[in-house]
């Protein structure tokens, strides 16, 4: 029999409902798996007492027929979401010792629906990274290995802990966030499904900010359906975040079975970037064929400003980050390193508290906003952003329902392999995902097969604003055609 932690979220939900097992059993199975998987360094904090208390409460509700949508479902929480009474670090030393007195909107929604919190998941520091190597609390190790190799691989980032935990059955699903690809790239690297919903679908209240105009929360789970279930609980209007859309949350799970018959899928020619591997090209073609076979029309489209997205992102995101991270000054919470005066305290605290990548982005951001450079960088980047958005609008106006692209330029790479010399090498990881954040659109990454070394590869579907439903429907077609990804054997246990 499958261990309880290897069920899908939907299976677990149905099993709980049918009283095949208890929420406590389900939670214990996860806590046991987490304990055995510490080598992956996916969890920064485990909260077993809280988890068991929540599971027990869930069992009581299930017994009395008052189960809520996620009753008893154990989840991992990316450590960017503030959790009341549980340390929250954003993967940074600068927030060492910080325990919020409040619960983020997204996690509060999950607990409202009965979910169980297993702990806080590792991430790149302040969500800045594509490999989970910038975390101040150590690298996350992917549960995947190349065939015949025991080299440690990255799980992707910044939601590396979330993706690794989901892939290694250390939770049924996890919260994640995506500013330039931080949900979709790790999902692709770990054979899991991740959706970045439309900007404004989930409240940002209580989530540590990286780049406010791009940040968006979403789930990572093992199936498309599980993602749909989770997003349904995470999303929703919130008056505390004025950028959060005041829209009802559709029944995402119902959309999973819709199919793609009659839909038009666009294949953007600009995504066929120079140096794209034959393997990725083949994957992309295979995805297109799957959708076509299921009744969709597939046609080539043009998104001409795509090549400018990555450079523009690395102006806008650091600019916002340089300002968002100014509050970490050692005055009110987190790390404080004394200095001879207030400026000395700021400098010492921030020098010791922030890691290299965070410092780099703060410096880039400060530079591009400086007098004399603002117009040349920030203003132009915003113009590019408008043009990128318009590219998508025109494609959708021409009848395209969703756009298919690869999720990443390659499969997962080894820890320490990329970016140590040239940070741009790492930034290129997000070349396919970043446009989606710049345009505020929803994007989903779904596994579509393995590469020659046996590592998962993902495809990305990009949708109209607030049309996550079409993405779930199309991703389900790919998931069905690909078959559920075989997850790695538990070499770590």
């Amino acid at each position, binding site marked *: 029999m499958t261990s309880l932690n290897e069920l899908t979220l939907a299976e677990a939900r149905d099993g709980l409902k049918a009283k095949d097992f208890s929420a406590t059993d389900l939670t214990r199975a996860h806590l046991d798996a987490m304990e055995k998987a510490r080598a992956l360094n996916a969890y920064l904090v485990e909260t077993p007492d809280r988890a068991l208390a929540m599971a027990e409460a869930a069992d009581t509700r299930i017994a009395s027929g008052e189960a809520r949508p996620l009753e008893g479902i154990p989840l991992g929480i990316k450590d960017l*979401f*503030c959790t009341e009474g549980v340390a*929250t670090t*954003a993967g940074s030393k600068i*927030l060492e010792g*910080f325990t*919020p*007195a*409040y619960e*983020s909107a997204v996690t509060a929604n999950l607990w409202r629906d009965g979910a169980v919190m297993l702990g806080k998941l590792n991430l790149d520091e302040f969500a800045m990274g594509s490999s989970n190597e910038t975390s101040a609390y150590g690298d996350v190790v992917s549960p995947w290995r190349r065939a015949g190799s025991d080299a440690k691989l990255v799980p992707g980032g910044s939601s590396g802990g979330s993706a690794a935990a989901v892939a290694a059955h250390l939770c049924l699903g996890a919260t994640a966030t995506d500013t330039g690809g931080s949900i979709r790239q790790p999902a692709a690297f770990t054979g899991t499904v991740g959706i970045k919903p439309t900007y404004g679908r989930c409240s*940002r*209240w*209580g*989530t*540590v*900010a990286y*780049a*406010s*105009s791009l940040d968006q929360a979403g789930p990572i789970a093992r199936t498309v359906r599980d993602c749909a279930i989770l997003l349904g609980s995470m999303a929703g209007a919130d*008056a*505390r*975040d*004025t*950028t959060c859309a005041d829209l009802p949350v559709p029944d995402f799970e119902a959309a999973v079975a819709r199919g793609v018959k009659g839909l038009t899928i666009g294949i953007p020619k600009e995504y066929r970037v120079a140096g794209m591997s034959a393997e990725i090209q083949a994957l992309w073609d295979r995805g297109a064929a799957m959708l076509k076979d299921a009744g969709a029309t597939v046609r080539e489209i043009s998104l001409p400003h795509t090549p400018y997205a990555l450079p523009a992102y690395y102006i806008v995101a650091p*600019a*916002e980050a*340089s*300002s968002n*991270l*100014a*509050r970490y*000054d050692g*005055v*009110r*919470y987190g790390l404080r390193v004394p200095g001879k005066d*207030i*400026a000395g305290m*700021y400098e010492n605290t921030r020098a010791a508290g922030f890691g290299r990548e965070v410092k780099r982005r703060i410096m880039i951001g*400060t530079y591009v*906003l*400086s*007098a004399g450079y*603002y117009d040349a960088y*920030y203003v132009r980047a915003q113009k590019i952003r408008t043009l990128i958005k318009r590219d998508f609008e025109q494609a959708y106006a021409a009848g395209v329902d969703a756009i298919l692209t690869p999720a990443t330029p390659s499969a997962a790479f080894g820890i320490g392999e990329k970016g140590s010399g040239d940070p741009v090498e790492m930034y290129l990881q997000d070349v396919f995902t970043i446009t989606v954040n710049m345009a505020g659109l929803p994007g989903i990454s779904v596994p579509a097969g393995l590469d020659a070394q046996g590592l998962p590869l993902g495809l990305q579907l990009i949708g109209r604003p607030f049309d996550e439903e079409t993405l779930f429907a199309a991703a389900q077609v790919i998931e069905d055609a690909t078959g559920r990804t075989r997850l790695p054997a538990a070499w770590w246990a």
Partner: protein
Amino acid sequence: MTAAVNPKKLIKGGLHDWEVVIGMEIHAQVTSRSKLFSGASTEFGGEPNDHVSLVDAAMPGMLPVINEACVAQAVRTGLGLKAQINHRSVFDRKNYFYPDLPQGYQISQFKDPIVGEGEVLVDLPDGESITVGIERLHLEQDAGKSLHDQNPTQSFVDLNRSGVALMEIVSRPDLRSSEEARAYVTKLRTILRYLGTCDGDMEKGSLRADVNVSVRRVGDPLGTRCEIKNVNSIRFIGQAIETEARRQIAIIEDGGTISQETRLFDPGKGETRSMRSKEEAHDYRYFPDPDLLPLEFDQAYVDALAAGLPELPDAKKARFIASYGLSPYDAGVLIAERASADYFEAVAKGRDGKAAANWVINELFGRLNKEGHSIETSPVSADQLGAIVDLIGEGVISGKIAKDLFEIVWSEGGDPRQIVDARGLKQVTDTGAIEAAVDEIIARNPEKVAQAREKPTLLGWFVGQTMKATGGKANPAAVNALLKAKLGIE
């Protein structure tokens, strides 16, 4: 630019006459129950850090939400300044590090303020008026307060004010003397208080001024300006300008040049001193706050607010002059505070406006000032003062008795008519009684009578004696007439 220069306003230097050019940035705290972007209270006072929300303390993940009441106040103020109301404005972040600025940035409006160009009509004490251009008004957050005197080695921070809404009202450099500057701030304060958008209390810091001062010889282009930060009383504004203008003149006449800088005024020492130079000026790295959408509203919203505006000082003054026949000066005094104007109108209702104005300005205001009362806490109500004015008008009491009556009402209260009855303050109009008194005085002072026939101005002495003899209650007109007749004076 080529407005006529008033020679009286020039400052005499050692070598030349100098014109001082002043522009002001007024920070006015918006009257609202909660802060600009959080629900925390704006109440003045309270223990340090009592009125601080998670947003104000810039806890991780906290987001600002615009307070609609503050937006309405800014629009109302813009309307009061006859200014352009911008239907779309943008909040920007002004980035700098300071312990009392928890976010590491102030949310302000840089490129697209909520209110654009307007103007303020300012009356000067000499009866002249000037129009001061308003460049813009924008909304921004106040900072907290650093407390340096609580601990020998550390500074403490009080965030009660952090995030309170301010309106920054920027004038054009249209002011030409410290007197004009003081009159401008006074008038602006009056407008704000009429609108109820700022209490104007400079002692509590609800209204602060940054004053830009430069000097030039008449006809020259504008000189280099210095900004004097955070001047917190109208008197100090005047002093700071005088001090700074003279400092600049002395430097230039000595062959030096003014360097653009930010200065502080020290009222104790009567000097301004450098705070930071242009080179040390912050690069604030303004950019639109991505946590906030642009602020947008339609004309209907503006119209609704306009419809709810009270009568503003200029309109009220014109009406007082037209309907009550007041002098511009008296009208100006009465409208300086909305409560005073309301009080006056209550007294003047159905009565002679000029008489009412005299009593309110001369007797009541004089007494209120002396005792440190405000019009709101006046011991004499408008009804009471109105009754006193009526009693004079009806000839029941003389002006002199009225002053005594005012004293009684001030200190003891009560209905003036009843007091007059109860204490026998009615003036004597019975000519028989007055005649008896007059006859007696004439009989006792034959020399004076003879003199008076030669020198009619002595009539006053007889009037005085008669009033004294009748305990001040004699009707002065009757006394005059009788004396003239009896003394044979025309």
